[in-house]
Structure formats: structure tokens, C-alpha cells
């Protein structure tokens, strides 16, 4: 873990510096009249102390060969999942809830989980229509409308 602890310690140290710099651009104030930057500055400083502690502890650790990915890791599936979530966010209010959900289910079921097309289509249709019914009809939670929703 030594290498990973050093990497993560450095990352957190960079975050703490960024927080401190950002806080100082706000009004920090005094101990008796704290400004809006006071509390974030304190958290930034404390985070800096802990990240240095992580780095110090990492220096004491033995070098062990640890792999980031598990053997036969499904890296493609993970990358595609990120992409499909991003795509969902991008299309939801443009295409509408049902259309985007069907597309999301099709893509995840087929390309991440490896289901057959027929299974993927079945899941996509059932889940998106059932959820739309529950949210829109039963609990009246507004979901973004699209072409399919206008048919109802």
C-alpha cells in the first residue's frame, strides 16, 4: 500500500492547499468575528496535517507489490458504466425520462452485464414504464417529459 498511500497523501495535501487558497480569497475574519472563509480554512489546515501524517506513515510501510486492478478485472465494464451515467445525465431532460431510461438499461444490460438483446429490451421496457407509473402517477413526482411521455 506504500505507493498508494503516498499518492493519496499527496493528493489530499494538494486538496488541502487548494482549500486554504480558496478560503483566503473569502473573508476569514478573526476568532471573535469569523468570516465565511474561516471554517473552510480550518478544515483545509487540519486536512493538511492529516495528509502529512498519511505521508509519514506511508514512509514507514514496507514496499509491497499491490495491483490496482483485481485479476481479470472488468475494466471495460467500469469505464462504460461511467460513460452511460454521463450519457444519462446529458440526455435526460432532452429526450425525456422513459426514452433515456430505456436507452440506459439497454446499454448497461447489454454491454456491461452481458445480457442478450431480448433480455436487455425486456428489462429496459418493464423498468422504465413501471418506474414512470410509480413516480408520475402514484407519488406525483415530476419526471422530465419526452416523445414517449406525450403519448400518454
Amino acid at each position: 500500500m506504500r505507493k498508494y498511500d503516498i499518492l493519496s497523501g499527496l493528493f489530499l495535501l494538494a486538496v488541502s492547499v487548494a482549500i486554504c487558497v480558496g478560503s483566503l480569497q473569502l473573508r476569514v475574519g478573526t476568532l471573535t468575528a469569523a468570516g465565511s472563509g474561516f471554517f473552510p480554512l480550518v478544515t483545509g489546515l487540519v486536512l493538511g496535517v492529516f495528509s502529512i501524517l498519511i505521508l509519514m506513515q506511508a514512509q514507514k510501510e514496507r514496499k509491497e507489490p499491490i495491483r490496482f486492478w483485481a485479476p481479470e478485472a472488468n475494466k471495460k465494464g467500469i469505464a462504460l458504466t461511467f460513460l452511460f451515467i454521463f450519457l444519462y445525465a446529458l440526455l435526460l431532460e432532452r429526450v425525456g425520462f422513459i426514452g433515456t431510461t430505456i436507452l440506459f438499461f439497454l446499454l448497461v444490460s447489454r454491454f456491461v452485464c452481458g445480457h442478450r438483446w431480448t433480455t436487455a429490451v425486456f428489462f429496459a421496457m418493464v423498468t422504465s414504464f413501471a418506474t414512470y407509473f410509480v413516480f408520475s402517477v402514484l407519488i406525483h413526482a415530476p419526471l422530465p417529459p419526452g416523445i414517449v411521455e406525450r403519448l400518454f
Partner: protein
Amino acid sequence: MDFWSNIALGFSVVSEPMNFLLCFVGVLLGTLIGVLPGLGPGPTISLLLPLTYYLNPVSSIIMVAGIYYGAKYGGSTTSILLNIPGEVDSVVTCLDGYQMALQGRAGPALGISAFGSFIAGTFATLGLMLVGPALAKFALRFGPPEIFSLMVLALTLITFMSSGSQAKGLAMATLGLFLGSVGLDIFSNVDRFVFGYNFLFEGLGIVPVIVGLFGVGEVLTNLEVRLKTEVYQKRVSHLLPSLKDWKDSAWPIIRGTLIGFFVGIIPGGGGIASTFASYTIEKRLSKHPEKFGTGAIEGVAGPEAANNACSGANFIPLMTLGVPTNGIMAIIFASLLINGLQPGPMLIQEQPALFWGVIMSMYLGNVMLIILNLPLIGIWVRFLTIPYAVLAPLILFFCLLGAYTLKNSVPDLIIMLIFGIFGFLMRKFRYEGAPLIMGFVISELVEGAFIRSLLMSSGSFAIFFTRPISCVLMIVALILFILPFFGKKPSRLGSSDKEG
């Protein structure tokens, strides 16, 4: 109102059809997710957070509590039948439970686990009912310095009791405190770290952050290793333990209940800490310690009782002091906030229907759980055949739905995605999510108490050490902070949330 009037109030709340139904839905969902490996109570409750917004606060907390303690019951099923803990606190149950199943005694193992859980859960609820109001009354004496010190202690304890490095845990808690401060400053109404994005004025949403860290992060971790579900094909029969089983299990259940209850009250005292403690004590007290690990029923009864007593006791600090004891309690804390309620000593006075209604729902839920987990065990065994490849798209979709529907905000989906990636990397770099979530949800409270304390003391930090309660809390926090540097940190404990 006196004690009996409060109990009557609690019963009237829980006997309302909607609350009764949601208590059942909660324990049913809890059992289901407890049975299904790869889906824990943390992600499930976080996925349901937006739904709780549409329910009344009492009903939603009754349901959420049911999911939490229901998952504890269900978690033992896969531990016993498949040697896979349905949720992380049931790891210890695998040791002897699975061995009993291999010897054809899966029935008594499941039976004693359910009865032990019922006894412990009922006792913990009784404890909550008796200890809760007294503790809340005591906590009313707390001013800003005591609240701040208590929060510092809670954050130190949760990182002290966790399985990983304390420095990493505290770094995550501090990062959580910072993330919670993003948005409009509560004192000056000035925006902080919003970078011109209007959606950040209200701060980072609790739901997208929690759903991303726990839900998406967990799915990605499971997807990496393509979690395969082993299919259990044997029939489970003879669920009622024999007289000898009861004789062997009675004291372990009593001891487990007490251990679980006291561990559960301590912030950071997760179910796994209580189950390991119970198992170790039972092994040490046994006349036949060599039988442990080969199918000793005491090794199932004690830890299962401890686990369930712990889950009930976890509600005591949350409801009375406003301190979430672990990651899941932090999510329940968030659900109270979403419903406009502030957990803490005033909650019992201001919301008696909520406090007493939830307590009474726990009694009811425990009865429902024993019915669900004994006669209907065959149905739960069938759920073990659902492959993760079917669950993963559903969980991901509910994450998206949960993050979006609370505010109908697309940026919340992006925040969820960012925290999903962050949660995945945290697991890889061995950082725990619970301290971050805890820091995040109590950030506003900590900032308010900190600044008010400094105002009271004209800027002197000595105020945290000159007031007796605050001083004791701070000293304990400091001791816990220093101990790991002398090699005194518990080595095999963990917070009770399931983080994959």
C-alpha cells in the same frame, strides 16, 4: 407526558395503516437486501432517501429504521447457507453457521439466529425506550462548546473503531466537514466554493453525495470482480432449535445482547465490533473452545444477538444527542434533515410522535422479522439465485433516479457520478466512506457550534477545556487520537456500514 402516555402515543402512531405498512415494507426490504450479497443497507437507504421526501417524516423514519435492523436479520442467511456474508456485520456468523449448514444443521443455525436476533432486538428497543429520554434530558445542558467537543469525539471514535488507518479516517472526516461547508455560509449568507454554479448555492446535495459514494461506488467495486452468486440448492428444514441448542445458546444470546447494546451506544461502535467481541468472549468462556469454527451453535447465537442489539442501540446517540454512530446512521441523520427535522436532545420533546412511534415500530418490526425469517426462509433462499448481473443495472438506475428526483436537477447526477468515481477510488486506496459522510452531514452543526463557542469565549480555545463536560469529551477524543501512535488501535474492528 408520562412514560405510559408516550407508549400509548407510540402505539397509536404505529397502528396507523400507512405506518404499519411502511414498517412492513422496511423490514421486508431490509431482509431482502440482507440476503442479497453485494447490496447493503447503506446504499439501499441512500437510494430511498428521495422517496422519504414524499412521505411524512414519521413514516419515512419507520421505514428506514426497518431496513436497517431488517438487514441485520437477513444478513445471516447467506452467511449460514453460502459462507458469504449478506452484509459485513455477518462475517462472524460464517465461521460456525456455514459449518453447521455443511453438517446438515442449517435449520437450527437459521432458527437460533432468528430467535437470538429477536430477543436482542427487543431488548435493544427496550433500552432505547428507557435510556433515550434520560440521555436527551442530560444533553439539554449542552451548549455550543459541548456540542462541538461531542462531534469531535464522535468523529475520532468512528475513525478509531474503523478497520483502516486512523489518519486516513480523520482526513476523510475533515474532507467531509469541508464539503459540507460548500454553498451559502449560514452566518453571513456569502457563497463559498460555488465557482459561479448556481446549483451549488444550496450546497452539495446530501443524496447525490451519499448515493454516489455508497451506491455507485459499491456497484463499480462489485462489477470489477464480476460478483457471481452461488446457487443454494439444498432444502432447509427443522428450523426450530432443539432443547440442547437452546441450552447452549441461552447465555451467549444474553451476553451478546448486552455486548451489542453497549457497543452500539458508542459512536463508531459498529455491528462488526460487537460480533467479534461476542465471538471472542464466547470462545474464551466455552468449555470446548476447540469446537468454535467447526459448527458450534454458540458461535452463531452470540454474534447474531450482538449484531441486532447493536443496531437498536445505534439509534440512542442519534435520537438523543444528534450523533450518528456510523455511516448508515449518518444516512438516517440525513433523511431526518431532508424531512426538516434536527436530530438531537430536542427531538424527543418537539417530535414525541416520531421518537415513540419509531420505538414502537421496532417492537412490531422485530415480530414481523421473526415471521419473515422463519416460516418464509424458503422464499429468501430463492433470492440467492438472482445473479448480480441482473441487480447491477437496477441498482445503478435507482442511484440515478434517487439523485435526480429530489430536486429534479441534472447537475445532481453529475455530482453523483463524481462521488461515484471518488467512492470507487477510495475503496481502491483503502479509505472508508463512513467518516466522510459523517463529517459531511454534521458539518453545519460543527461549524455553528465552533464559531458560537469562540464568540462566547472572546476567541479563546480554552473554552473547550474549561467547561467540565466539554473537557472530558475533548480529553477522551485526544486519548483516542494519540493511542494508535502507540500501537493501541483495535485491529479487527469496523464500522457497521457495508461499503464493499
